[in-house]
């Protein structure tokens, strides 16, 4: 869409960062068994952009996302979301943060089998005891193409459809950041493409911020920006050019 959104990150665009991580370190275990999953990572994510995080297994990409999303605590360093330092928050404050500002899409869909598609989508609102904005809900459901499936149970939906329900569930609260953890890891290529397009559309049409961990070059290529980690360090940060280009990059990372 607009070229400004696709601008390379090193240009330090005027868009304000919605997520800012400074000096992140995460150490598991002690002594001989010590593993430095993150080893000094500084990174910012701007509003309304779609960032992919890549890296070989053990690179720390999942740990980074967990810490950014407040699911794990760093050994050192801070994370700010929308100007709020989240590293010191207690469980109640984190719960509130998730309700107000975060959305999640998982590899294994994680839908409740006892609820219909629409009930699953509305779940975050009913948890927070918020009244759904009907118009917005319809729009979200329409956008993920589930209007005629809204009363189906997850077991009656295909994998791709289930993941679209999960995307809609993440979008329905208009989160400041949407975290996606290998969202296409369990889907065939057609379904993957659908899901990624939806995430892309959310960024382009409503200015949604998306941070996605993936190991699929095709998926990463849908983003505005690609960061890569290796041995707990940030080793690459640039807009992706094409899937082939990403594959090349991965090869250099080993």
């Amino acid at each position, binding site marked *: 869409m607009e070229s400004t959104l696709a601008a390379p990150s090193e240009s330090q665009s005027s868009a304000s960062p919605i997520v800012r991580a400074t000096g992140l370190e995460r150490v598991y275990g002690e002594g001989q068994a010590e593993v430095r999953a993150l080893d000094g990572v500084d990174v910012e994510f701007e509003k309304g952009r779609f960032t992919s995080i890549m890296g070989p297994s053990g690179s720390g990409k*999942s740990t980074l996302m*967990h810490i950014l999303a407040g*699911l794990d605590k760093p050994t050192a360093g801070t994370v700010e979301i929308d100007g709020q330092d989240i590293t010191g928050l207690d469980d109640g404050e984190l719960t509130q943060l*998730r*309700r107000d500002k*975060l959305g*999640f899409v998982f590899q294994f869909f994680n839908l409740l089998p*006892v609820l219909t598609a629409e009930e699953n989508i509305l779940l*975050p609102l009913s948890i*927070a005891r918020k009244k759904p904005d009907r118009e917005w809900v319809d729009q979200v459901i329409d956008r993920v193409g589930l209007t005629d499936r809204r009363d189906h149970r997850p077991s009656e939906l295909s994998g791709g459809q289930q993941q679209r329900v999960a995307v809609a569930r993440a979008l329905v609260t208009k989160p400041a950041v949407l975290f996606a953890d290998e969202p296409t890891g369990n889907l065939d290529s057609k379904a993957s493409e659908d899901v990624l397009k939806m995430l892309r559309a959310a960024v382009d049409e409503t200015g949604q911020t998306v941070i996605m961990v993936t190991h699929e070059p095709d998926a990463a290529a849908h983003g505005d920006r690609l960061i890569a980690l290796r041995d707990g360090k940030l080793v690459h940060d640039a807009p992706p050019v094409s899937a082939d280009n990403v594959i090349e990059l991965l090869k250099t990372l080993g």
Partner: protein
Amino acid sequence: MLSLTFKNLWARKWRSMMTAVAVIFGIALVAGTYILTDTTNQAFDQIFNESLAGTDVVVTAKSEVDQQDGSTPAFPAKILKKVDQVDGVKVAAGSIFTQGAILDDKGDSVGGGFAPQFIASTGPRVFEAVTYPQGHPPTSAHEATLDEAAADRADLKLGDTIELVGTRKAVPFRLVGLTQLGGSSFGGSSIAQVELPVAQKITGKEGEYDQISIAADSGVSPEELRDRVSEVVPKGLRVETAQENADRNASEIRDSLQFLTIALLAFAAIALFVGSFVIFNVFSITVAQRTREFGMLRTLGASRRQILSTVMIEGLIIGLVGSLLGLLVGYGLAAGLSAVLKAVGAELPANSLQVLPRTIIVSLLIGVGVTLVSSLIPAFRSTRVPPIAALSENLEVGGKNRVVVRTVIAVLLGLLGLALVATALIGGKDGGSGAAQIGAGAVCVLIAISIFAPKLVSPAARIIGAPLERFGGLTGRLARENAQRNPSRTAVTAAALMIGLALIAFVTIFASGLSSSVNKVIEDQLPGEIILQGQGGILPFPAGAVTVVQKVDGVEAASGVRYVSAKVDGKTASISSVDPADIVKVYTVEWEEGSDSDLTGLTDGQIVIGNKLADSLDVGVGDKVTLTSQKGQKFPFQVSAIMKTDSIALAGEGIISQSSMARDFNQKSDAVGLVKLDTGADLDQTQTAIEDALKKQDFPTVDVLNQGELKDQQKSQINGLLAMIYVLLALAVIVSLVGIVVTLILSIYERTRELGMLRAVGMSRRQVKRMVRYEAVITAVIGAVSGLIVGVIFAFLIGIPLSGDGFNLSYPIGTLILILILTAVAGVIAAIYPARKAAKLDVLEAVSYE
């Protein structure tokens, strides 16, 4: 979120129902107990009210000391004259209502079961509460009526002969009427009515009444008349309005049912306690299986409190449903039980079952309470699921095994429990509070054991699984591994079973100890070969019977023993009297201080006292004690010797002379007769001769037993009680078996993928089934073995302080092994459904299961 809870419950309805079963049984017993006792109480209220229909004021004698047969003392008939003269008395009449025996023309008792039989007098029409569906009231000294239900039971018609036995020989009467009391039956008891003088004569109450009924002049209130009558009657009598009398009688019935209620509720508590283990397990497993779901909900912004409340609300609903179903089952139980009681002749007074609001409220509160408390720990565990659990594939929650904390808690609880049991036993607390303390102690110990149990599961499974591995090969091995895989799950399942079996083992050992101790007492202390007792061992028999037996050929000596309940220095005790001439020939007393000559030389005013009573009163030989009779009269006695109290208490807790007994306590009937035969006399022949002589001399209510028969009788009484306890404990065992079923099904659900893999690599359905069955057997046997061990230890501990009283435990090894085998079989039965479910899994679906 609330609707989510409901949907989850509905989606897991099968599991939820099985969980509800854990409370259904216990609550059914609670509700059934209440319904049954309320119905009985209400029926007796009605009986007492109806029987006093035309009566305004009632005069009876106060009973200073409650007698075991529940009888009240009679009072002199001349009091009626004084009552008659009171202003406002329209009619006053004395009556007799005394326990006796009613026999049909063949000499068989008309009553069924243990229900009492009464001999009553007829009176003026105004007081007569009964109606005559057939015949009429007796019009001569040779006529009698009988209640319709008893006549039906004994198949008696008008014109038939019945015999009545009071304190004298049996007397024949012609049956001229069948009676009915209002709309209700007499509650299984039989009542024969004869004319007043006849009734007085039969019951040995010539010149006495059991009761005076008074009707007031119009315009005089019952209360007013009661006060006026009170002024003219002696102090030992009680004057009440009819209402007060009915209320008091009803409340006495209530009190006597209290024990039964408490006993039944105790079994309900056991079933619920076992059920709480099952609930705990189901919730623990469910929470573990929903870890990812809880994590996901947390990422969507659900707070810990919301997670907690979804789990707790599930508990609440399951508890509510379980309690409601329990109430229904309880109602059915009460209906079934009253039908059973009717069939054995102890029918409840005909009435609709009473379901009081209290029954419903208590059932719901207990059912919901137990479920909530049991699901508390799993519910809190669910709140510890971190949001990140949504992203991980396998995550054990609460995996921190705080071994030290657990062990400390287990040890402390165990010690507390043992201390409670020990202090209750040593402190000699009486009945209720002592039993409650022992119960609380046992609960502590059992919980302590189950906290510690997961540690024991692995070695136990290895030992118990060894033979299965040998015969079952790989399936046996896998079954054992499965049982060990989640030790706390297996432990809790087995612990539920352990509780029931520990109690079963305990009562089995205790009953067997009781039987053998009683046998030992009979052998050691009754040198006489024959024992006489009143019909069914309950009612005393006429004094003349022993005299008849003494004259039978082959009898060397026969001696009757009489009993009365009296207060000895304020403490109620059972006191006996014996015939000093022959007693030492037929009864061996073990002396603490004294000798047989103290017994043969026993004079009026002397008492031989049991060592326990002597200890608790702190009296010794030569000391004075005061005995208070039922009528409240006080008599001084001097302790002449101290005997050891035996466990069948044949001599009661004190022995006085025959003449003191008759004069001071008005007891002229024998309860037991001890007979010694001449050396060389044939036992069978002499026994038959004694029976014939008693029949011929019109003493049909005396049972003649030889030692073997007496032992059998005692044993069958103990076994009867034991059978009842087994049935009640079976409820708890069934609940724990349901626990095995649910746990297996949940585990299979968890292992779907693994089972699919096993099938994919060639395991047959039959092997899958066998594997599940073996796992059930291992769990069941762990529960059974630990239960038997705990039961044996408890019996041993509780037996220690009792051994001084001549109570010796004996361990029925055969029975215990049989119980073990039955439990293993029950495990196989419990596995039927889960095994079928596991075998039915579709291979492909199982492998691709997500």
